[in-house]
């Protein structure tokens, strides 16, 4: 079994949600605030909301609000279908979101000022991380460590790491490629659909992908 050049350091990550004063009461508000809110807020309502939306129609907070509070199903579907993994930066994601709403409002001008059933509250996550006493030097140890992660920490390594890694990859894939020289396994893990699967399902898929990798 290959031994990594540098061990993988597991980190315990947790979040508090901070609520910003900005609110959207209409789709017009949403289009405006999407242009001005923090990058952290964009990230929170798209990537980090994945942790909490097993039950609702869409994982993106923006899409869910546009569906449930504005009754604009087509626009909601359009924003929900944005492929987050194809985004190379939060600026690009912001452009996709705000541009989508703006285009919709150009085509449906009556939608801009119609009051939503409830306002949208812009939030962001305040992160606290701390290294835990667990490292992985090979694939077997990585899989063992992943089995023991809390869901928040799994999300940190798999999803929020994309912010640090400029949205291109995740901690596990990055380490597997850089330290074990296994780009194909890294790519497979990076391809997992975290937008439509629960974190527990993702954990099982990662562990299965590692277990199924032929690494004598």
């Amino acid at each position: 079994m290959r031994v990594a050049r540098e061990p993988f350091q597991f980190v315990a990550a947790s979040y508090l949600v901070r609520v910003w004063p900005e609110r959207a009461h209409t789709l017009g508000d949403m289009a405006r605030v999407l242009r001005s809110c923090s990058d952290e807020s964009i990230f929170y309502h798209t990537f980090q909301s994945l942790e909490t939306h097993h039950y609702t129609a869409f994982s993106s907070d923006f899409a869910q609000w546009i569906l449930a509070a504005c009754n604009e199903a087509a626009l909601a579907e359009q924003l929900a279908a944005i492929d987050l993994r194809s985004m190379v930066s939060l600026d690009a994601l912001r452009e996709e979101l705000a541009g989508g709403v703006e285009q919709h409002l150009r085509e449906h001008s009556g939608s801009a000022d119609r009051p939503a059933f409830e306002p949208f509250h812009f939030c962001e996550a305040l992160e606290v991380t701390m290294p835990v006493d667990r490292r992985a030097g090979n694939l077997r140890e990585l899989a063992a460590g992943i089995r023991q992660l809390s869901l928040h920490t799994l999300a940190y390594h798999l999803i929020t790491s994309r912010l640090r890694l400029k949205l291109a990859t995740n901690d596990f894939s990055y380490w597997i490629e850089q330290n074990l020289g296994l780009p194909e396994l890294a790519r497979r893990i990076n391809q997992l659909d975290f937008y439509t699967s629960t974190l527990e399902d993702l954990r099982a898929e990662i562990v299965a992908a590692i277990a199924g990798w032929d690494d004598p």
Partner: protein
Amino acid sequence: MPELQAPHAAAHPGRVEDHAPVVGQAEIDELREMARRLDGARVKMVNSTAVGGGVAEILNRLVPLLEDMGLPTKWEVITGGERFYAVTKAFHNALHGAPFAPQADWFDLFLATNEENRRRMDFSEEFVVIHDPQPVALVEGRQRLSNHWAWRCHIDLTRAHPGLWEFLQPYVERYDAALFSSPAFTKGVNISQILFYPTIDPLADKNRELSADFVQSVFESFGIDRKRPVLTQVSRFDRLKDPLGVIRAYRIVRRYFDCQLVLAGGGASDDPEGAAVLAEVHAAANHDPDIHILDLPPWSHREINALQRGSTIVIQKSLREGFGLTVSEALWKKRPVVASAVGGIPSQVIHKVTGMLVHSVEGCAYQLRYLLANPDFARRLGELGHQHVRENFLITSNLKRYLLLFHLLRRGMPPA
């Protein structure tokens, strides 16, 4: 000068490790690590009542767990005369949107009582958490201190009376952070506003598993027939919980189903209106033998637990609500829930997924009828509701939020 009221310690506070079977050992390990890095920091919690109401209940469970994590935590309760509590009750109602006509001395009485309590309390702990508006002005005590203060607001401020909020806001803005139960409750203050869901303790008497025999015995002791559907609302007798609306909804349902109604609750020690509301409820019930009005003492946790577990549907038809922990309690027990879309309830009840949200007496009756007619769907709601609570509204999540808050306060909250 009145003596400080000693809060009741939980009878069996338990240890954090006891929650491992519910949330997993990894979660417990992370909590331990987060607590360890706080180096035994001391914490103070202050609220306005030791028994009755959701806040006392949360603290009753949370404080022993913080202690178990190696953080010495002192829970103190402010004291005041009957007039002070009448004033704070009026404040409470006005913050929920009720009409507000303060008498000339109310604000002075409020501040004087806070000042009396401030003088007798010691605030040398590193972290001080003040709960709700009653003790909010204790923050005057931080002038010469370098410790960290947070204000935990458990109530829905969406319709807060503007004049009253204008009076309270300067005190709130002297804290380092304000903690709210829902994004909708935030007020745009100039400090960090943090989302803090309230939570239930799955191991507490009110929520832990009970034997079927015990559940049956509780229903029998109150003369409730479990062979017929039982609709239950558990809430203190408070107009904001709309017990009269529940009776009206039940009477509509009765046209279609031979069901019973249970209204179980009590009067919290800081609620002088409780007796009056209870009398109104008795009058509205008009001796209907299928309406069971249970005025229970605050220690009736196992009985409440049994009533929730044994009910066909649990109702929470509040007109205003802070969070409505009874909803999470019922969902944890896999009960189908029909609840008003107010306060923090929509965070718990996702309509048609983890329960049914309603906006009126007639809507409440309609959804009750629908669930009684569709028991498989009702069962599915209960199952998903249980999962939703497990992921979001258990006390270990609350414990984690406090540990995170303390870490962030210590290192300096990012600018709001």
